[in-house]
Every structure is written in C-alpha cells, then in structure tokens.
C-alpha cells in the first residue's frame, strides 16, 4: 500500500499552488528531523524562491553545552550511556568516541531504559540530553530507579524545552520569521496550547507538521494562507499524532520528576525557563550533584564560527566562511555541524551543489 503522504499527485498539486506565491517570506523549522526531511525529500527545490526555509535551534545535540562531554571524560569505573548522535560531538579535546577508544566505557543506548538496566551491573550515567520528545522517557527511568531502588544510576541533565526558545527568537528584533513549522514529536508530548503565544504575542503563525513530504508542504501552505488572509494562528497539520492537550501520561511523568530551570543553549546563550532540573525527591539520581559537575560555560565560539547566527536563522550555513572548507561533518568546528541533524550538517549533505 502506497504511503499517501508521499502521493505524487497530491504533492504536485501543493507544489503548483505554492508556485504562485509572490511575497518573499521566511519560514523556520525548529526540529532536526524536519531539517533532515526537508533535505531528504529535496523540498527546497520544489518551492519558489520567494519561500525561504530556514533552520532554527531544533537539534538537541547541537545546543547542548560542550562542557557535558568534558564533564564525564575524567570519571573512572562508570558506564557512560549515550544516544548515538552524541558520540562524535567534540569536547575541548576529544569526543566520547575517542575516549572510548582510550578505554572509557561508553555505550550507545536506543532507549533510556537500557541505561537503567546497565546500572544493575555497574555504575551508570545517562547523558540526559533532549527535548520534550525524549524527556518523558528519561524521566521515566528516574521513577523506575526510585521504585526499584537502583542506586548506581544517575542522569547528567541537559534537557531543554522548545516554547521558551521560540519566545527568545521572536523577541530578538534582528530576526524576522514569517511563520514556524512546529516540531511534530515535541508537539505529540506538549500539544498545541503551549505555542499560542506565538500568534497572540508576536502575531506570527505556526503549523505543527509531521515528517512526510506532504505534511511539510501542507504546513507551508497553511502558513501561506494565514499570511495572505492576515489571520495568524497555530494550526495542527499532524492531527494523526498530535492532540491539543498533548500526551497527559508523558506530561505527568515530566511533572513528577522535573522542575523548570534556566537553560543554556550552545550558540544562543542562556534562555530563562527553557531547561529542566531534577526535583529534590530525585536528587540522588542527579549526576550534577553526585559527581559535583558544573555545566555552565561561556558562550564562546571557535574563531570564525557563526553557529549563533545560523541557529537563530540570521544566516544560512553556506554564508559562514568556515562552512565546507574548515568546518565539515568530519571535522566540525561548531555546534551546527556536530550532529547529523544539525543545520550545517544537513546543509552540507543535501543542499550543496
């Protein structure tokens, strides 16, 4: 059975409709998987030049402080459990992959529960990075660890939430965004209500989209229609997965184990209320306390790196002087190139001629 979200006839119809769009607009997506889907399907080449798609801070690996890598490198007799795409992120001197080659017990997990299982055999720290999509799973391990009294487990939290980051972007006068493609899986957790401020406070529209080409093109059409009618709102294109109130079970897990905190976004800086800290009752599983770790860092960029501008959508990756020459996926200089879903990495892979 053919996937109707890849139906050529429907896609061509949307592409033809959008082909008539005359007013130059910038639409930002804030999800690494959208960045990749747009590249994978060649969506930019299907759109007229008047519709510019830019990437915002949607990749959790890219916006995680470098200090999280440096913090675990000196630890002895622990398992460092990590999601795959953090493996090649450089700390000051080396990546977790290199540290593994030198003897650090680094193990890739597909689910946070694997890390909890590892803790039954050996002291384990889970690199706790991610947005709302991943946060409930990580939070759930804390509930389980407490219930089952698994003492040798902790998480090193660098968790971020999306809506405050969007607020920070929109309040920056130098940035002009005409509409957002909102993250499909984050929204599956939080629903559509947390985005209402985008239209109410900033008079900008948003479309929660899935990841198929038809989803993304439909979302762009929704935003164009709103701009044309001058009637902005938050629309849900991804109704087959996202409900208005989100996923109450997942939200309940988050509320049980985490408090809101300030978050440090690499490339952007500190954003109030954009992070999560572990609640007092679960502090025994907080690696920041257990190992006396401080993740704060200066918002420094390697010389010439313009990740900050890229993450805010002020420039496109190919505008950066280092892009493709000094900074490549094999030798990343900045945050946007380090993860396979980072804006610069996606651009390097899909959009270079």
């Amino acid at each position, binding site marked *: 059975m053919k996937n109707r979200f*890849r139906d*050529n006839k429907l*896609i*061509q119809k949307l592409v033809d409709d959008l082909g008539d769009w005359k007013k130059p607009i910038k639409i930002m997506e804030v999800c*690494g*998987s959208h960045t*990749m889907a747009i*590249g*994978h*399907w*060649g*969506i930019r*080449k*299907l759109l007229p030049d008047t519709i510019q798609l830019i990437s915002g801070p949607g990749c*959790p*690996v890219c916006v995680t402080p470098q200090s999280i890598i440096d913090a675990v490198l000196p630890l002895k007799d622990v398992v460092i459990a990590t*999601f*795959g*795409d*953090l*493996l*090649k992120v*450089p*700390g000051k*001197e*080396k*990546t977790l*992959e*290199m540290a*593994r*080659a*030198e003897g650090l017990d680094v193990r*890739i997990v*597909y689910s946070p529960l*694997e890390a909890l299982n590892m803790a039954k055999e050996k002291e384990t720290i889970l690199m706790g*990075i*991610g*947005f709302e*999509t*991943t946060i409930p799973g990580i939070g759930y391990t804390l509930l389980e660890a407490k219930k089952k009294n698994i003492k040798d487990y902790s998480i090193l939290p660098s968790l971020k939430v999306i809506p405050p980051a969007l607020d920070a972007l929109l309040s920056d006068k130098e940035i002009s965004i005409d509409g957002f493609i909102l993250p499909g*899986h984050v929204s599956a957790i939080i629903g559509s209500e947390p985005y209402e401020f985008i239209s109410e406070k900033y008079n900008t529209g948003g479309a929660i989209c899935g990841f198929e*080409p038809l989803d993304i093109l439909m979302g762009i059409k929704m935003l164009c229609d709103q701009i044309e009618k001058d009637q902005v709102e938050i629309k849900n294109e991804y109704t087959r997965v996202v409900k208005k109130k989100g996923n109450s079970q997942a939200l309940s897990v988050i509320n049980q184990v985490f408090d809101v905190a300030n978050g440090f976004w690499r490339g952007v800086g500190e954003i109030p209320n954009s992070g999560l800290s572990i609640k007092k009752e679960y502090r025994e599983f907080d690696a920041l306390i257990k190992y006396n770790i401080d993740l704060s860092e200066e918002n420094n960029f390697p010389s010439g790196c313009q990740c900050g501008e890229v993450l805010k959508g002020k420039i496109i990756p190919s505008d950066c002087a280092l892009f493709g020459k000094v900074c*490549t*996926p*094999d*030798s*990343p*200089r900045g945050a946007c190139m380090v993860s*396979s*879903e980072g804006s610069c990495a996606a651009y390097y*892979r*899909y959009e*270079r001629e």
Partner: protein
Amino acid sequence: MQRTIVMKENRITLGHGSGAGLTRELIRDVFHKNFQLPSLDDAVEIENRTVVTTDAYVVQPLFFPGGDIGKLAITGTINDLSMKGAVPRYILITFIIEEGFPVSDLKNVAQSIKKTAQTAKVRIIAGDTKVVQKGKADGLYITTTGVGFIKGDISIDPKKIVSGDKVIINGSIGDHSIAVLNKRQNLQLHPMPKSDCAPLNDLVQNMLKAGEIKFMRDPTRGGVATILNEVYEETKKGIIIEEDRFPIQKNITSVCELLGLDPLYLANEGKVLVIAKSPVKKLINKMKEHPLAKKTSIIGEITDEVKGVYVRTSIGGLRPLPLISSDPLPRIC
C-alpha cells in the same frame, strides 16, 4: 578527507572499521603506504586467472536470524571471489576463540560452515586455531582465505562503464544490518528481520553468461551508497538511482525511519550490485530464475546529467548520496 582537528593523538575508532570513508583512509594511509598493494580491494587476481581473497568476521551477536558467524564467513568469502568473476573452490579458515566459549556453540558454528560450504560446492582445506584469555576475543573471531579460478574469457572492467548503463540489484536492501541490530540491541521488532546472508557464486556465474557486465560488487559494510561512490570515483561517471525502484521490505523501511538510518548505507550479505550494458532484459530474466534473485530490479542508471551519485526521490526531487566517513548512528529523537 580532513582529519578532525580535535584529535591530538591518533587512535583507531570503530569508524575505521565501518567499510566507509574512514576505512579507506586507514587502508591508504597505513597499509597501502607500507605494502604497495596492487589494489585496495580484499580480493585480487594473481597468475593463471587465480583469484585470492581474505576476510575477517567479528559480528556480534554470533547467532542471528538468517545466519551466524560461520555461515557469514563462508558466504562472505565466496562472494568476494565471485565478484571478481571467479568460481570459488577452496577456503582456509582460522578461529580465534575466547577462553570459556561453549563447545556446543563452536560445534554449531562448525556445522553451519560445513552446510554452507557444501551447498556452495566449496571445500574447506586447511585452518588454524588459537585460544585467547577470557575478555580478549568477544567469544569468537574467524578469518578466512579463499581461492577461486576465473573460467573462460571473463573480463569485468569498470573503465568500460558509459552513460546509459543500468544499475541492478538482485533483491531487498538493509536486511542483514537490521537483523543483526535487532538481535544485538533486543529491539524486539515484529516481524523479525532475517539476514539475507547467502552464497552468490551460482547466481553470478549465470549472470556472466547473460549480459555484458562491467562492474559487480556485494554491498556489504557501507552499503549500496559506498559502492556507488567508489564507482563514481573510479570512472567519474554520474549515477542516479530511483528511490521508487530499490527493493526494500516494509519492516526494514519502518525501522530505518524510526532510527534515522538510511538503508542505502546498510550492509547486505546476499546481494550483488551490477552495472551492465543496456538493454538488460535478458540479464534480468536470467537473474530472476534464481532463488536468490527473484526480486531483481533495475534501480538506476549511469548518466551525464549529474556529477556524483544522486537519488531521485519518489516525489521528484534529486538529493545527493555522498560517501560518509563511518557507520550511521541512530538519532535521539
């Protein structure tokens, strides 16, 4: 390929064994530099149309749906010889066994080797065994040396590749990688993926009689994408493959999309990628007669339209299919 600027000391990483860019860099910079290898392949024709090959098998887990390390060792060796147009005849095999390894498992591996070799009409003629201390060998490692002979006038020469030649594969991609991943990580996928691990010698000999074949390779580690990039590097002829045309099982597509893996970079152990002179109808029909090639498909074409390897997406876009430096990693979200 630029070294990462962060490395102060060069150490081997798992990426160097991925079969992709870093592996090639390693072979070029360390081995070829010292040995002056006649080619960077793992199989080579020596005198009297004799082809020899060598390989190492370190798969984990040792037993997986569709095969095991023993079967893989035989099929892998047979396939390397077959890709050079040789009829495989002899295999020499070594076992590096970890202290404490169950004898029953070793017997199962030996039986699997026997069965696979018999089916493929290849003889195991010599071998070696070593036992190492507990913790030094992940259960079992196997290495092989294979010997085969090219019959007749066969000459497979990628330099003859021209615009209009077709790119063909004998069946679905990604099965082996996902089957092994599923077992290793206990992902509990349903239906359970099975490795496509199989000896291709019989199929290949049939193919060589049915069409003008300019290139053949089994897309193992690094996948179809890596092989096509190697062809481009050698010939500088553009390649476009059609997303709608590569055979792939639905459960493999679903897992790849979930984990953010591109099946074009995943290993296959029972597939042959062919570039042949058009028209290829006779070749395709011949291939489809064989049980290992029922789903043979033309997946693309050599073309002057592009410089490099590209995929035409099912919605009409064109996206590059570059060489990547190491194994794809599953993403967070």
